[in-house]
Each structure stands twice: as C-alpha cells, then as structure tokens.
C-alpha cells in the first residue's frame, strides 16, 4: 500500500497537484478513500488530515467505505425528476433489496447512488451503470438492465 501511495504522491503532489487530485487518485486506485491513506499523505505533505477529511466529506465524489462491484447512478436532474426518476430509484431499491439509507448491497455487488444531472436530459430519465449511459428508462427497463449485471 505504501508503494502505491508513494506512487500517487510522485504523480500528484510532486507536480504541484492539490489534495483533491490526490484523493481522486487514491479513489481510482483503491476504489474508496481509506483513513490510513489520508494519514499517510498528511504525514508526507504536512497538510493536516482535517483538510483531507473536509474535502472528502464536501465533495460527493469521494467515498470513505468500499463500494460495490457495479455502480448504478440514477440521474436526479430536473427532467429526470419530472419524468419519474424516483420511481426508478424505488424499483432499484426493491430489486436490490436495499433499505432506505444504505447504498451498497450486502454481497458488495451493487452500489446505488444518485447524481444531480448528467446532462443527458433529452433522453431522460437516465441511469448510468458503471458509467454506461442508459436513456429513456422506466422501472421495467431498469429491472431488465439490472439482470444483465447480476450474472
């Protein structure tokens, strides 16, 4: 792990990049931001861990816990909202057996998130699975799509 972190350090801080970039790299490498990696970077850079933590919890992109193998992101922009994004979310929660307040399935296969707007409003409602865009969704279609990822 230290080697990976040193590699990230050389790639980012050594080139004058800020801690947001550092955290993006950590997350790209490990899938989420572990506390130890922050303490390592804090010691390495003399930037207080509180600054890292503040940044992590400010930006919705960062995650402090491991996420599922597949990331399902439901767009909740205005158009998706008026075209029924909430129904898609409740269908997904049902299908994944995810209670309110949890984002990741117990088997770590899926994480359900929402995003403000992916800017694909013409094909609303929109769902992203692992960054692949699915447009003009409805509860039936999303259930079908989900099945292909369950296998």
């Amino acid at each position, binding site marked *: 792990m230290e080697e990976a972190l040193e590699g990230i350090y050389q790639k980012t801080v050594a080139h004058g990049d800020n801690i947001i970039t550092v955290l993006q790299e950590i997350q790209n490498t490990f899938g989420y931001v572990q506390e130890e990696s922050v303490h390592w970077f804090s010691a390495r850079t003399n930037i207080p861990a*509180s*600054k890292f933590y503040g940044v992590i*919890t*400010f930006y919705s992109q960062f995650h*402090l816990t491991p996420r599922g193998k597949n990331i399902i992101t439901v767009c909740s922009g205005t158009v998706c909202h008026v075209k029924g994004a909430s129904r898609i979310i409740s269908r997904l929660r049902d299908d994944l057996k995810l209670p309110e307040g949890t984002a990741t399935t117990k088997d770590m296969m899926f994480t359900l998130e929402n995003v403000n707007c992916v800017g694909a409003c013409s094909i609303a409602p929109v769902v992203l699975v692992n960054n692949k865009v699915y447009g003009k969704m409805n509860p039936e279609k999303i259930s079908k799509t989900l099945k292909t990822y369950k296998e």
Partner: protein
Amino acid sequence: MISLTIDEKKIEAPEGATVLEAARLAKIDIPTLCHDPRMKPHGACRLCIVDIAGLPRPVTSCTTPATDGMVVTTTNPRLERLRKTTVELLLSDHPNDCMVCIKAGDCTLQNLAYKYAIRESRFKGAVRQHNRVDNNPFIMREQDKCVLCGLCVRVCDEVQGVGAIGYANRGFESDICPPFKNELNCEFCGQCVSVCPTGALSAKMWAGQPRLEGMENTETTCTYCGCGCNITLHSHANKVVRVSSRSDNHNRGWLCVKGRFGYEFINSKDRLTTPLIRREKGGKLEPATWDEALDLVVAKMSAIKEQHGADAIGGLASARCTNEENYLFQKLMRVGIGTNNVDHCARY
C-alpha cells in the same frame, strides 16, 4: 487615511481597513458572530451586513474594504429584519438550553436573541444531533450548539498551525470535528474554546463551576515559561476556577495548554499549609509554628556563619518567584548573611 461616511457620521480610517474596522474605530456597533480581528475575515454569519450606497444588495462589512467617499448605512429596518431572521434561523437549530449552558451570560448568540427579542423562532424543523462525548480531559464539544462561525477552525489553522479540527460534510449537515470524527488529538491549547461565541466549546474543568459572571477576575501574568503571557484568573470562593486571556494584551489572548488548563495545582490538596521542621537529623519533618521555624532558621544560619564564615552559606533564588522576592532574597544573602553565594536555576 481615507474618509467615509457611516450612518451619516464622517469617519477617518486607515488605508486597507474594512468597513467593520472603520465602524468600530468610530464606536459604531455592528453585530457579528464569525469575526475576530486576529483572524482573516470569513463573511459567514451575515450579521455584519451593511448597505453601501451604489451597491444593489447588502454586503458583509467584515470583508468589504472601506474606500474613500464610501457612504455606509449600518442599520435600517431592512438590515435589522435580515439580521433578526438570521438569528432566528440559528436559534431554530440550537438546543436553546441556556438555563443549563455554561456560556449563558457570556454568549454572543444569547445576546443577539436578547437584542432582537426573539422569544420563539418562526422557523421550526430538524435540528442537528450530536451526542458524542470526547475522552480528552480538556475540551468539551457540544456541537449541537455550534453556529459554524468557523472561528475554532481558523484559530487552529491560522494561529496555532495545527489543523486538528476542520469542517466536515456540507450544507445543513456541516459539522466541525477532528478528521474522521476521531477523538480530538491536539495540543489542547484551548484557543478554540477561547474564541467560541456560543457554548459549543468549553472546558471540561469548568463544568459545575460558576459561570463567568459569577466569578472574580484578576489580571496577572502566567507562571510557566518565559513568554510572559497575560492571563486573567477567574476565582470563586478562594479557588481559581478558570484561566483566560484578554485579546488586547501582548499575547493577544493566546495561551498554551499549561497556561490555560494547568491551574489546578494552585488549589491542590498537596499544598504546604504549615512550616515543617526536622527536629533531629534523620528524623521526620514535623509541623511547626512560624516562630519556631524562623527562629531555627536564624539560629542555624547565624551559627554556621559564626563557625564557618558567611561563605559557608549559599542561597538559591527562584526563577519562578517575583522580582521583588528575588531582590529581597539576594539582599538577604548579601546583607543578612554577608555572602555573594546567591544564584538561581536559570542555567538548567
């Protein structure tokens, strides 16, 4: 110097002053919660808003530089309405348990609520819940009383250079905490406690002691290192129960953990309360009267001087006692005993 008009008063202010600073120079009061002249302006509490002729909307006086010829209004019904709403909003997310709060009487939020006569907030809704109690022996955090003025974060970062606490989350869920909500692990200087405008930060040692207004205050100088910080000893019933420092002194109100929290020794049960005498060599130290003790000191010292000469006696003065005591001590050694064998522990 620049000149500007605040509330129809002509005011001179130094170049680079903010509108708030200019107003305060002229003794014009503008309420604030997040401002402290010892730190960078923040502009978050929105209480110090003023109208400036030519600007379409109110601006915060703490962040706006005063300029020559500026015309400023610090109070009018609109500004007061906005301020009152802001205070009401703060109170709508506050425990409002002033009755049992250590800060009552010394709390900026409470004073503002009083000023705007807010018996009840028009806004009711969710309140933040914080039940955490830290293990550290010094700092009590009651984050549900936090108004997020950011003074503690700024003092820890800008002044103390530690950054032990920071903002976390955002929006209504914003919080101030150590990284990863871990236990507070810092220098415990208590600077954060000293700048907190509400009861969100206090000292654990203060709990159950009288509140600030119930105490006697004594301005004095810290007894620890050579920085010479000015401190205020707050006492009650012949006990020192709190130490603080005024922001207008040479240490600007900043103290270290020893100066701020290391005062319990004063009222320690270990304090010596009576002279002790070892009545025979190898014996125990036993209580004695002052007369008995001082008689013995004078008799023994005189005898040694008689027998072995004055230079057989030495004195060690104290780098912790006052100038007057040290002066008198060396005078005692030089005049009363007759030796220059006087030194102190400055060398180690």
